[in-house]
């Protein structure tokens, strides 16, 4: 015999999360409807909590203890429990076989209807579920199709669909207490490596990888040392994670005796190295992670990644995003890059090289800098750009494209106070 309990609270994320916890504390099978509504399977709970009325009171008390107010309805169907919770006295039980009678006075708005069917039922003058339930089924099918018959079954308290069971996201977190305090970095990294192995095993069992890690070192004297790292690629290899943790801790070691460790992983779905047979292969996450670790140690984590154009007109407004085995991107042009006209490349000078520029009639005629020097034989400009005047760091720049006597093409820029070479065309 099916017994479903419906729990309603306010439509607030925090209240809804608490409601889910209350439901899970009473039944292993819970359906998350969202918006402050939860169903739970109440069948078989009599031996644990007593009869339905006792269960309803217990659910309300547990919710009150958790800081929220809820309405509870228990019936043989979801729709019956929903009506009991919504229109009952706060804790309402519909006895087995009584769903249809309990639903008879409930409004049609209790059902989720398509706009066309809602309009049709309204035109027929139907207002309650009882009126819908009383219609002849054959005639309803002829006029409203399968959807009409389906909602009529719900109006009669017949809901054969099983609960869509919900489970909370697993927390990828591992902790260890160190009976003897750890005074040096090596055993700390070793313990973190063990935690990373456990986490990577759990992630791998679910086909996941981690794109972020956080650690907490609990220090003597109730202090804590916390840190986080974001690998360049999602990782599932414990050795790669341990290597990154070692680098991070060597750069910023805990200052004190470590008495406990916690490691958390942020799970993500790992992209395969090759999406389809027709795609070029990509670096495998395993090899790429190892290579990236060594590159980060070589050049620094802020000097490696995928180039990203920032949403700004400021010259050289670029950033570095995470290079993470990019997912396939549909080539909308449907052709290779050589289909574009050849583009003249600009080689940026970073930082821009200061230059001494000689002007004649407001136009540059010669320049001298540590990188380039010579007479300017041709030039066009100035191309003025400015922006971010609404911020503390406004910028303004006049750019010139010039050709030196030796044939070098470069971009000169004047920022209002000084000249510099922004780049060389090549």
């Amino acid at each position, binding site marked *: 015999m099916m017994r479903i309990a419906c729990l309603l609270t306010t439509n607030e994320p925090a209240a809804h999360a608490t409601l889910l916890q209350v439901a899970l504390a009473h039944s292993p099978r819970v359906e998350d409807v969202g918006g402050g509504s939860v169903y739970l399977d109440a069948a078989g709970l009599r031996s644990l909590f007593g009869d339905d009325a006792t269960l309803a009171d217990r659910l309300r008390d547990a919710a009150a203890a958790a800081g929220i107010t809820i309405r509870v309805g228990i019936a043989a169907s979801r729709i019956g429990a929903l009506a009991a919770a919504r229109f009952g006295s706060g804790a309402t039980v519909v006895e087995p076989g009584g769903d249809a009678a309990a639903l008879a006075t409930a409004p049609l708005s209790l059902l989720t209807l398509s706009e066309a069917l809602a309009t049709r039922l309204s035109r027929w003058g139907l207002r309650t579920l009882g009126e819908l339930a009383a219609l002849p089924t054959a005639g309803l099918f002829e006029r409203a199709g399968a959807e009409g018959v389906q909602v009529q079954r719900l109006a009669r308290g017949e809901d054969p669909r099983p609960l869509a069971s919900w489970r909370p996201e697993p927390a990828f977190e591992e902790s260890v207490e160190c009976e003897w305090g750890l005074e040096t970095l090596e055993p700390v990294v070793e313990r973190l490596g063990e935690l990373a192995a456990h986490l990577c095993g759990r992630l791998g069992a679910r086909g996941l990888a981690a794109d972020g890690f956080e650690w907490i070192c609990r220090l003597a004297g109730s202090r804590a040392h916390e840190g986080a790292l974001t690998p360049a690629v999602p990782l599932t290899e414990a050795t790669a994670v341990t290597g990154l943790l070692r680098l991070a801790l060597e750069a910023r070691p805990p200052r004190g005796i470590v008495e406990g460790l916690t490691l958390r992983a942020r799970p993500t779905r790992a992209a395969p*190295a090759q*999406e389809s047979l*027709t*795609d*070029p*292969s*990509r*670096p*495998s996450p395993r*090899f*790429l992670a*190892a*290579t990236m670790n*060594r*590159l980060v140690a*070589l*050049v620094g984590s802020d*000097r*490696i*990644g*995928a*180039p*990203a*154009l920032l949403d700004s007109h400021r010259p*050289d407004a*670029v950033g*570095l995003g995470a*290079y993470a085995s*990019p*997912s*396939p*991107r549909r*080539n909308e042009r449907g052709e*290779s*890059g*050589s*289909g*574009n*006209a*050849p*583009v*003249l*490349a*600009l*080689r*940026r*000078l*970073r930082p821009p090289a200061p230059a001494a520029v000689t002007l004649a009639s407001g136009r540059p005629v010669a320049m001298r800098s540590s990188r380039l020097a010579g007479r300017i*034989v*041709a*030039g*066009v400009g100035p191309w003025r750009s400015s922006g971010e005047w609404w911020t503390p760091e406004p910028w303004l720049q006049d750019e010139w*494209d010039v*050709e030196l006597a030796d*044939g070098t*093409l470069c971009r000169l820029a004047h920022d209002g106070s000084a000249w510099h070479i922004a*780049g*060389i*065309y*090549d």
Partner: protein
Amino acid sequence: MAMGVPIESSPPPGWEREGIDSLLGMFPPGRLSEIVGPRSSGASSLLLALIARITTSGSGEGGGQVAFVDGMDALDPASTAAAGADLSALLWVRCGGRLRVALSAADLLARCPGFALVVLDLDELGPVPASAYIRLQRAVEGTPTTLIVRSERHREGTPASLVLATRRLAPQWMGLRPLTRLAGLRSEISIARSRFHAFSDGGSTGSWTLDWMLSQ
């Protein structure tokens, strides 16, 4: 002041699709190649065209992955995107003018399977010992990875299978007098050395004249 040469912006004069396609298709996988040329000779533009070709070379679902070891931090992502490259398929390693770091990074990436192209852009950095070139060549031997070193001058004694030399011909300006805009650069690319092609003397079949257009 130089005489301006009026040109049309589209289609680019002197540009033959077949010409640049054959040029970009010359770089042998599993081998070290070099692009050498002085400033403003079109060498970097040639690299960007190759990167664009590779990162969009898939059968409609995405292209190959490219690692760019930037010895002088000179890569301009705006130009790269304008050339048609998919920036998300590009791994950019900025070495801040450190030659040894650049060589080590290129060596690591050449040994990481899965990259279709590894570029080592040295520009003015050097001199590079010949042993470093040999080590890089061995790193990609027998793999589908193309390795390209871009520098100002070709160093004798390197194991490069293909050396392309770029030469500046003339800048392209819009307008006569006064000039109104820099439109692009005409450059010549010739085969200075090749182990796989019959022409290695820079003759008519081994050189290309290309107009690189400045994107606005």
